[in-house]
């Protein structure tokens, strides 16, 4: 597993997206990819993290300490995932603004995303199951 410094995944998004070569030809594709991944991860958090909890196998001190330790770690990782999805979405929002500057209308951007996203969510919904 990668080292997870606080905010590291979100920072990576900002750093990597800043290196994209955005052109009028690829701006919608870049926007669609980031926005669809943000939506996928946000959904994964909704379907998986509410079920994530380590119970105490016993009432002894070790069980309590272990369960609390695992649950604190889960909580931390979930927050990292939320920050990661939000960073992807913020980058997608920036690309949508750039697309408008290139002359794409909001309707075109939304239609392009809707077409891309439907297939993306269906392909990846169970990819990590």
């Amino acid at each position, binding site marked *: 597993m990668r080292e997870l410094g606080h905010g590291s995944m979100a920072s990576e998004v900002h750093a990597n997206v800043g290196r994209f070569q955005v052109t009028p030809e690829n701006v919608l594709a870049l926007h669609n990819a980031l926005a669809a991944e943000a939506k996928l991860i946000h959904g994964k958090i*909704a379907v998986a*993290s*509410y079920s*994530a909890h380590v*119970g105490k196998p016993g009432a002894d001190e070790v069980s309590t300490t272990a369960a609390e330790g695992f649950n604190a770690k889960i909580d931390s990782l979930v927050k990292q995932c939320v920050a990661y999805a939000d960073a992807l979405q913020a980058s997608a*929002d920036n690309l949508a603004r750039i697309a408008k500057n290139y002359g794409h209308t909001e309707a075109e951007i939304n239609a392009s995303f809707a077409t891309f996203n439907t297939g993306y969510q269906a392909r990846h919904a169970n990819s990590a199951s």
Partner: protein
Amino acid sequence: MTRRTRTMAGVFVVLASLGLVGCGNPPQPPPPPAAPSPTRPALPPRPAVLRLDKVNPCDLLTPAQVSELNTDAGVVGSNNDGLGSRDCLWQRYPAKPDDAWVARVILKQGAETYLSDTSRVTQVAGISAVETSSDQHNPAWHCLLYIDVAPGQSLEVQYSNETGDHPGLNHAVACQLAADAAQLMLSNLRAGAH
């Protein structure tokens, strides 16, 4: 603890989607549920049995009902609870408010499994349900219902809002939003059972 038999499998699913979990570390199956405490009240008798074996969770809401909830079409998933259950997610993210509903058809655990010191028993469309919340999230922004549809099976209906931006949101409102969706699902489930 508000829910029984919680595993890390769900988080592994999230982490795996981010490429953070190695291929050699598949989620482990959850431990068997602990027997309910004998001091806890049992759930009231079921008015009818609605088995979930052949239910596609995304079929529990019609397209018209999905529009009524002002959300997007459902996306099916499986094993996000570590029990092999199929689920369906309806969300509009990134549109606001950040409402999300999940329906999960649990074939391996009855609703009574989710009774705890912090849960309460309620009724949805005349069927008993265990109303509870997750320790991992702010209870004011989500609600979990485990509906007692059949022996050894339960229908989980979850409402959640990661940012708490639904107007007037608190735990009671979250549970009402979950119950409203659950009522529609049970109506469709009953119609399909005939």
